[in-house]
């Protein structure tokens, strides 16, 4: 479904993505992990069109998208969340999500119904007209996911949506993501919480300093010394 091939990106002199390649299959939950600054978010930014890669290709459902604009990529069926939630602060929760659902319909009423459905699905249990600036951190994350889901993506990119949540919150999110998978949505997910990644992911890509350390099943990744080294190395750095 999504193929990333030899992607390269540098900021100034710093190479943040070094010839990374991977593939996300339909209906798969694909995880990306790596220490802080490994280039995970930058990868998302390139897939979603916010940053143009220096070289390499990104193909989605057979279309090459590395030069497309964010809105075209979203239209093609890739939804994304931001690591730091980006609500429209003066709009209500419902209106926030409606912006997303209006991508697929012109009718305000249909968009509203769709938005309510999505809000219920992500279990954002606040009144629809709550100003989005009043939300708690975990509700903000849910809203972030709801907005992306409202665009009816076939592939959704989730950037640390569980960061800062408590145990129950994480569990709820894990169930939510499995539910998404059941509905046939492919998921590309970045997360620092290892247990979550181990349970969720079909396969995991480990990045370090913009480079692929390895790609494999959760079990392979967990037992690989190179991965441990990458994380330990980071701790020594810090």
């Amino acid at each position, binding site marked *: 479904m999504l193929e990333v091939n030899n992607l390269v990106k540098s900021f100034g002199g710093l190479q943040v993505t070094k010839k990374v390649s991977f593939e996300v299959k339909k209906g798969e939950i694909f995880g990306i992990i790596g220490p802080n600054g490994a280039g995970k978010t930058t990868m998302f930014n390139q897939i*979603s069109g*916010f940053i143009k890669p220096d070289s390499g290709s990104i193909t989605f459902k057979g279309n090459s998208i590395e030069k497309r*604009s*964010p*809105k075209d990529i*979203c*239209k093609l069926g890739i*939804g*994304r969340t*931001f690591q730091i939630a*980006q*609500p*429209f*602060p*003066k*709009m209500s929760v419902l*209106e926030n999500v*409606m*912006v*997303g659902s*209006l*991508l697929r319909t*012109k009718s*305000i009423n249909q*968009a509203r119904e769709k938005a309510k459905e999505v809000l219920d699905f992500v279990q954002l249990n606040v009144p629809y007209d709550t100003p989005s600036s009043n939300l708690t951190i975990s509700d903000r994350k849910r809203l972030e996911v709801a*907005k*992306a889901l*409202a*665009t009816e993506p076939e592939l959704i990119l989730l950037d640390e949506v569980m960061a800062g949540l408590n145990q129950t919150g994480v569990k709820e999110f894990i169930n939510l993501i499995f539910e998404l998978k059941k509905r046939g949505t492919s998921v590309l997910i970045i997360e620092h919480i290892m247990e979550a990644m181990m349970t969720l992911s079909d396969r995991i890509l480990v990045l370090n300093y913009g480079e692929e350390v390895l790609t494999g099943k959760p079990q392979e990744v967990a037992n690989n010394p190179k991965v441990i080294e990458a994380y330990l190395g980071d701790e020594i750095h810090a």
Partner: protein
Amino acid sequence: MNKQKKGMLIGLLIVTLLLPYLIQNEFYLHVLTSVLVYAGLASSWNILGGFAGQLSLGHTAFFGIGAYTSTLLYVYLGISPWIGMLVGGFLAVIVSFITLYPSFRLRGVFFAMVTISFGEVIRILFVYFRNKTTIPYGVTINYEPSFTNMIFDGPMGYFYVSFVYLLIILVISWKVKNSRLGFFLNALKENDEAAQALGVPTSASKFKALAISAFFTAIGGTILVQNILYIEPESAFSTSISTELALISIIGGIGTVAGPVIGAIILIPLGESLRALFSGSVQGLHLVLYGVLLMVVVLKNPNGIMGFISSFNKKRKKKREVQLEEVPDVRG
């Protein structure tokens, strides 16, 4: 919109339509007409400045283009201002596309700076090219009342033309605000990146807002010049027009449909009566007041009068809800 609101609006409409018959005084009627035109102009500005959040200070260019196009077409080629008005509108849209559209990639304050400059460039270029022609500095439109000439004998005609103008732009504002485009504009105003991530066509949406805004600002230019029957570059392309349109919208409530109307209802009579009271001796008094009002509003209450009204309504609603919760006891 609920029934009560609808009824109130229709009532307001009928009263406004009858006003010229109630007010026999020419001066008051003139002020009232100004209120309508400026409310329409400010509403046009508001579609770009308020709905899309692009704080243009170059709208004087569109105003001047509208006013001049219809006037020159009428005076030199005998083309009816009704047609000239539309030509001016389309010309303004073309100019807006060349000038403001590329400026959209600049952030707020810089957008304001570059749009002021664009307004100035258009004025300078206009003055320059006028010198190369035989068109005099000030152009007077001959007083030949007829509907086709958009010249009327008496204030009544202007009143109704302005009324229809305002009505059209208000209906369009309302439609835009409550459509997909309105949602998109609101989203890109609040967070451009997040909007793009949701597939909002940010450029196309801004362009639509710009086109509507420029078109109706130009139309307002024609209506105003037909009212005065005189035009000159310094006043038609004056930077203060852009500022005034923004000011009216902001005081009334930027980004709302009713805001510009409320702003015009307050500011225009204020300005006109101060001007009439202190004609000549104390120039600029109303503008001093405008300046102070603008500062106070943006610093203390950037949502303007509409902001007050909506927060007041919310409080009242809450109160009513509390009361309702207590009522069932009694009824039950």
